[in-house]
């Protein structure tokens, strides 16, 4: 594909950009909690990321939504502060906390000014260790969560993803949205929330990333101050689950001029020997930017969508390769056929030498540009640890990509991409699309 572009590119071939020099310190707090730190004293604040592995998949089956609601309540009052008092303290220190839940982890992001870091740390400790879960706060946030659930139920993108997951994972926690259902959230009790808090926030499962104006010694003390009083032991995680949804099309009727299509099948583990080949393959298939095959064929050449992409989902318990696009109801059938054709072509023929080179250049060139701020760097450090990567991964990552050969990609494409297994959930009123075709 696009040979004209490849030819044009050869005229302006450049050497690869310099690698970022990121100096990561491995810190162990006096209390035994490990953290990664990138020190940079040029701006007087520190960005902190605490990721607690486990996440909303730890919900008890009868209390779906408890972890999500619990995380929403952490900023609604702690220790001797009610919700308003806590919020006023946060504002007064010009610190910022964000508490989020995801399937495999709950995450806490914070930024603290150097000038009042100790006070900010005590405030964060109170939120994590001594949340109040006041009845009025529970009712208020429960109402907000219910409104979010109702919003998702009327949003075609959410309906598509939720339908796909339900068909793929059934009773496994991955099979239902982490927000829970109207029924499950309505039934949640304060005890459910306390149990979710006890399960999700533990020292055994936390990873810490820090970047900014702080020394290793100061960071160690700060971490113990914030996390030291959390319980150590974590409950077991759910078993892995295989995505074995049969190929086909599921249509969900939704009155809209446009259909949303969510599609995919089983993927590849991060520790698979062919992971990096699959990573390069996905870049060519539907990775970011305007040049992937899916963007080129569905948007640029045919004007069937505003945007389309695919990605390797590295969910801890069930890796997958997934994608999404929106097309007008009268165009979506053609777009699906184009996606299937690309899937099939790659599975049979792999990618071209030009595509391999372009993908490598983009992936290796873009990587060092990511490390461009304390907040971003802290997040990358936490994410790497939650994936059990070694500290020298940043240095070596581009060489793993460089080592991928055309044959590697061909092999992994034949193994990974299966047009017969590709399942599309289409939400809208698509024309000429019938379930199962």
């Amino acid at each position, binding site marked *: 594909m696009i040979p004209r572009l490849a030819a044009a590119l050869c005229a302006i071939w450049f050497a690869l950009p310099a690698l970022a020099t990121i100096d990561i310190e491995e810190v162990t707090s006096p209390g035994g909690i490990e953290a990664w730190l990138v020190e940079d004293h040029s701006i007087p604040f520190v960005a902190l990321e605490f990721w607690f592995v486990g996440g909303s998949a730890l919900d008890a089956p009868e209390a779906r939504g408890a972890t999500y609601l619990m995380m929403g309540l952490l900023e609604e009052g702690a220790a001797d502060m009610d919700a308003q008092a806590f919020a006023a303290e946060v504002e007064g220190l010009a610190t910022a906390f964000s508490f989020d839940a995801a399937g495999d982890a709950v995450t806490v992001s914070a930024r603290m000014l150097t000038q009042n870091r100790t006070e900010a740390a005590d405030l964060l400790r109170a939120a994590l260790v001594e949340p109040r879960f006041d009845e009025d706060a529970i009712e208020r946030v429960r109402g907000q969560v219910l409104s979010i659930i109702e919003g998702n139920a009327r*949003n075609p993108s959410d309906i598509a993803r939720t339908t796909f997951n339900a068909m793929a994972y059934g009773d496994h926690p991955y099979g239902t949205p982490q927000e829970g259902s109207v029924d499950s959230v309505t039934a949640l009790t304060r005890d459910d929330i306390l149990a979710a808090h006890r399960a999700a926030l533990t020292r055994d499962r936390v990873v810490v990333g820090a970047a900014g104006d702080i020394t290793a010694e100061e960071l160690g003390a700060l971490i113990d101050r914030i996390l030291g009083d959390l319980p150590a032991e974590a409950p077991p995680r759910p078993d892995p689950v295989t995505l074995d949804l049969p190929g086909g099309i599921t249509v969900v009727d939704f009155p809209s001029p446009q259909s949303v299509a969510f599609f995919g099948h089983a993927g590849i583990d991060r520790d698979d020997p062919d992971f990096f080949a699959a990573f390069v393959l996905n870049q060519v298939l539907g990775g970011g930017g305007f040049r992937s095959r899916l963007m080129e064929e569905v948007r640029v050449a045919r004007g069937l969508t505003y945007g389309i992409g695919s990605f390797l989902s590295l969910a801890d318990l069930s890796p997958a390769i997934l994608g999404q696009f929106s097309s007008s109801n009268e165009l979506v059938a053609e777009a699906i056929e184009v996606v299937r054709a690309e899937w099939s072509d790659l599975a049979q023929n792999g990618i071209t030498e030009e595509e391999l080179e*372009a993908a490598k250049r983009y992936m290796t060139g873009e990587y060092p540009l990511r490390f461009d701020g304390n907040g971003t760097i802290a997040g990358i450090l936490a994410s790497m640890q939650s994936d059990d990567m070694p500290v020298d991964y940043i240095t070596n990552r581009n060489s793993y990509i460089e080592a991928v050969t055309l044959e590697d990609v061909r092999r992994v494409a034949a193994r990974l991409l299966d047009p017969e297994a590709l399942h599309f959930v289409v939400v809208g009123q698509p024309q000429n699309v019938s379930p199962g075709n």
Partner: protein
Amino acid sequence: MLHRLALALGLILTPLAVHAAGDIADFTLENGMQVVVIEDHRAPAVTHMVWYRVGAADEPPGQSGIAHFLEHLMFKATDTMASGEFSAVVEANGGSDNAFTSWDYTAYFQRVATDRLGLMMQMEADRMRNLRFDPAEVATERSVILEERAQRVDSSAGALFNEQARAALFLNHPYGIPIIGWRHEMETLDVDHLQAFYDSWYHPNNAILIVAGDVTPDEVRALAEEHYGPIPASDALPPRLRPLEPPHIADRRLVYEDARVANPYVSIQMLAPVREPGDQAEAAALVYLAEILGGGQTSLLSRRLQNEEQRSLYAAAFYDSTSVDPSGFTLVNIPVPGVSLEEAEADLWRIVEGFLADGIDPEQFERIRFRIEAGEIYEEDDTAGLARSYGVDLSTGLGIADIEGWTDTLAAVTPEDVMEAARRLFSDPSTVTGYLVRPQDNAQADSAEVGQ
């Protein structure tokens, strides 16, 4: 939780814009192209942006969406580059690129390793004047923007409601026309429209170059003179004189009904002044007013309606301080189930009137002032964001002196300034009040209309 709800509604929280003071240089090329350099040597990367002082509010009548359509076509062929080659070269050099269009500006940017800056300038300078419109590609790309409209607007009850409410707010000014365009006009946009718009506005003396990252002003000056310097200035730049608003003397109300509405809500919009060159005090006071009324968890709307009375799922105020012409001040209230939209509307006014009567809590005022000051520290960590902020300010008519003075202007605001600005804003507000409802809520809304 609140933020997530706001995102779900498509409400964009306007951050407090305060600029870091140090390591920023500016100069102008001989052809009139303005240049700003923001130094940040922490990573070997730069953000390269070119902003044009033209946007959707500058479109000829009947051609809504042409500014944004042209932005898409800027990634197609020039005299010397193939269609799509621009992004291909950026990606092959490990960079990323994109563009965006607003009512007042159109901007193009790339993020690349520092040693690729010259290449980016070479290509960006090329497409400033050498674009070639191919009718077949224009036709395909027109269907892409129609899909974009379908995805972003037609598929979202909230977006359709916002579009209608905005069209109602502006009686005469093109701020009432959607950036993406009205579908029936988008369908008619062709090569001639694109060529004329491009030839009118895309010139170095209507452009601002912003480079942020691991560079020095001298390096940027040398590269900019090499690549952008040779492009001649236009002597026929159209003035940016948009039709202005007449006095708003009548309240207007609208009800938009859509089966996809999950959480019915009410919004109240009114015109508000914005930052003017050399005169930013009123806008600075309004920034505080929006924060105090509805900027966060401890704001009046949130504290009273969400926390104390538990009558709202979400209540907030929004103010956009930076645009060429006066823009909107907005109050929003999503009531809890069981509270009607008429009651939610009355709740908003009750809080505003209470505020006008009771004044400002001094502790809250000091917290906000400190947060604005601290914002300056956090903003230094995000140079790409800083670059964007400079672009918005400069392309909406502010000068470097205004930008550098904005922090001091904000710091000088007193509670009395805020009260006076609030009294002016709310003294005789002709408002646009909108209800976003589900079909089953309709009977309720209709009966309320009769009662108004």
